[in-house]
């Protein structure tokens, strides 16, 4: 065999064996560059003392982690964020799933309705925040105009520590329930008809069908929807920044906003890195548990 033929053979073997790598390499490289590298870099920062105004980066071990885990503000904001995630994920899921179920009952104009319902999700969070801010403005807002028109007192929900958090959460739910709606609607559309027909023949009620057939069969889809929403809720920044800027008195401050301030306003990059690493660990644990549950479900099937 000539050298040329040998080369051709070698190249053929190579392409046969590693073709898939050629296809996934661009995506993999991009992921490494824009996702993995920043995570590794940010985690690395946590072990050094890094600021914008110095090229010196002394190693400080766990000092930043110790500081941030004993910082009252960080712990308060962490609790805020956990509550925010729990409420907004639950709220958007219940609402999104509920609307998806209702949508299955409609035949006329369902596609148009779907398009209208997903509009909030297509808007930029900044625009959503500004719009709701204006709607809820005590003096110039539409909501309070309606209230005063019907003789009710002016409401200042965003200014009160007791209500600001709830209002921001509601706006988040309003914006992101369409994501759950889309996922669940697609899941519901993909369900086989046979089990439903059989159940109806057996005289099963709507609730029994929902509990015994719909929910179990949708479980992987539900987990994907919850996972996406959880990760998304954890990194909420824009809406809070625009609507309340974390106030009043830190009640609506989320981890993303707090870490942004720590890094860019207070020039404490490593401390923010430590806070972000802790946040990453928490999100990873939650995601891992959900993935584990998801794959167990899939394998059982």
């Amino acid at each position, binding site marked *: 065999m000539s050298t040329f033929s040998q080369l051709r053979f070698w190249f053929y073997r190579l392409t046969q064996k590693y073709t898939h790598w050629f296809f996934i390499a661009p995506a993999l490289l991009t992921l490494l560059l824009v996702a993995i590298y920043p995570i590794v870099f940010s985690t690395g920062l946590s072990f050094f003392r890094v600021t914008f105004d110095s090229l010196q980066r002394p190693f400080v071990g766990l000092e930043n982690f110790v500081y941030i885990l004993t910082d009252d503000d960080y712990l308060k904001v962490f609790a805020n964020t956990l509550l925010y995630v729990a409420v907004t994920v639950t709220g958007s899921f219940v609402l999104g799933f509920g609307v998806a179920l209702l949508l299955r009952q409609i035949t006329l104009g369902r596609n148009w309705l779907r398009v209208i319902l997903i509009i909030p999700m297509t808007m930029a969070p900044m625009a959503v925040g500004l719009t709701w801010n204006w709607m809820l403005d005590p*003096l110039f807002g539409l909501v309070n105009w309606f209230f005063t028109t019907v003789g009710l007192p002016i409401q*200042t929900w965003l200014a009160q520590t007791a209500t600001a958090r709830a209002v921001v959460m509601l706006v988040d739910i309003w914006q992101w329930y369409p994501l759950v709606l889309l996922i669940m609607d697609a899941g519901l559309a993909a369900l086989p008809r046979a089990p439903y027909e059989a159940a109806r023949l057996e005289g099963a009620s709507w609730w029994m069908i929902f509990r015994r057939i719909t929910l179990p069969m949708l479980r992987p889809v539900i987990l994907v929807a919850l996972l996406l929403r959880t990760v998304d809720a954890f990194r909420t920044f824009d809406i809070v920044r625009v609507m309340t800027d974390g106030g009043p008195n830190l009640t609506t401050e989320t981890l993303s906003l707090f870490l942004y301030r720590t890094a860019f306003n207070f020039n404490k990059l490593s401390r923010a890195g430590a806070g972000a690493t802790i946040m990453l660990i928490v999100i990873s644990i939650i995601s891992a548990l959900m993935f584990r549950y998801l794959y167990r479900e899939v394998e059982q099937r």
Partner: protein
Amino acid sequence: MKRNRLVIFALLVLVLTLGIASARPAFAQIEPFALTDPASGARPFEGQTLRIINTEVVPILAYEHEVLDAAYVEASGVILDYTNYDQGALLPVLQTMCAAQGDDYDIMFVEDGWAGALEALDCLEPLEPYYMAAPGDSHPEDYTLRAFGTVAMHNETWYGMPTLVAVGMFAYRTDLFSDPDEQAAFQAQYGRELRVPETWDELMEVGQFFTRPDQNLYGFNYRYGTPNNILFDYMIHFGFSRGVNFFDANFTPLFNTEAALDAAAFFTGADFLALQPPGRESFQFGEVLQNFTQGVVAMYGTESWAIPLLLDPEASTVSDVTGFAPIPGWRNPETGEVQRALLSAGPAYMVNRNISPERKRLAWDYLQLAHGMQFARLLAEQYGAGHRISVLTDPELVAQYPHLTANYIAMQVGIGRPSTPWWPEAENALGQGLQAAVAGTPVEEAMGAAQAEVERIVAENGYNDGTFTYVTVEQREVFVCQLFARIGVSSPECGT
């Protein structure tokens, strides 16, 4: 023999070193150079591009660029290349550039609180040698000592030309105060003449008088929404005039002193909040401005940067009935005098030390003319705004814009905020204390917590061990006078 040679050599080195050290000027001298001059038509930098890193954080800066830059470009033939950043993101960009000794930009927008951080990176070019070589139209003596010391200098060194000096101003509705019916009703209710308040007590009375929710009218409004907003409004309007300061000479924070607690209790108290429109606890920059421009409040404690906007008929529904007065103060029970002191802050354009000597001369050319004395008049004529003494005291301009007098008074009593690198974090902690007080935490507890947090920040940064001294406003004035003496300009405030 060998030993003798060594001794002679050592002595020679010593003599040379002492000679060089004693002969060395404070800054490297610069040969005189030609500047752009609209009078003679000189355009030595024509065709060159000046790179400016900037932010347009307040309305007046946009008005300023519209007028001053256009005039400079026309006079000089220089191309101005602006890169604008959000104000919050600008300092990290500057710090990163400076730490790397970058020369990406010739001129930097530097807030008064940032100069210390950038000076530590050896990134700011002292302007004194440029003034000595080619003073042009810069006229540093045309600023009040407090304004110049706060905005243009860091400690003893002159680094910038102010683009804006923000001082507290008190806007009010002239139609309400001059209405005969309102005057009669006020006289009947309070037994004295209705006039723009000069003290806090008067502010409360007039505020109560104008608070009429059924007419959608309230007394006044302040910013409580973010930690730095609330801190500034507290200090500008109440803290300083009550005698509060940020730190003592040893950098011990002074936020749980009797005066500070008294001012905080007043500013965050229910009685005071009740005279402001609903939603006050979250008011930020935009809301307080909107409330006044839409005629919802009778009075508005604002800053000088807002003047052009408040007088702009396209921006305010009450522009034709807006008047300005000095911020009310605290009447000293011993002397009976109204004590006024307020925050003076603002940005200056500073020159990047890492650019070439040619580019530094170009940068100075822009600063001396675009932000010089004659161009300042252009801005005042068009928008009624200014921060130079020549503008604020000009009889023609004052006749056209009477508020310039109040602005001048404010310029003379302005106190600068600290410019230590860690100040933003301390500012946030103090503001959080005030926000907690508004949310219902007892003032002593809220301010005590803020005090403890700032003490921690000071200690963490090593400023509590006697190495650093807090530069007071009086010391800043001394530094400015020393500069004026060095560069040979006279100033009545310095007694020269």
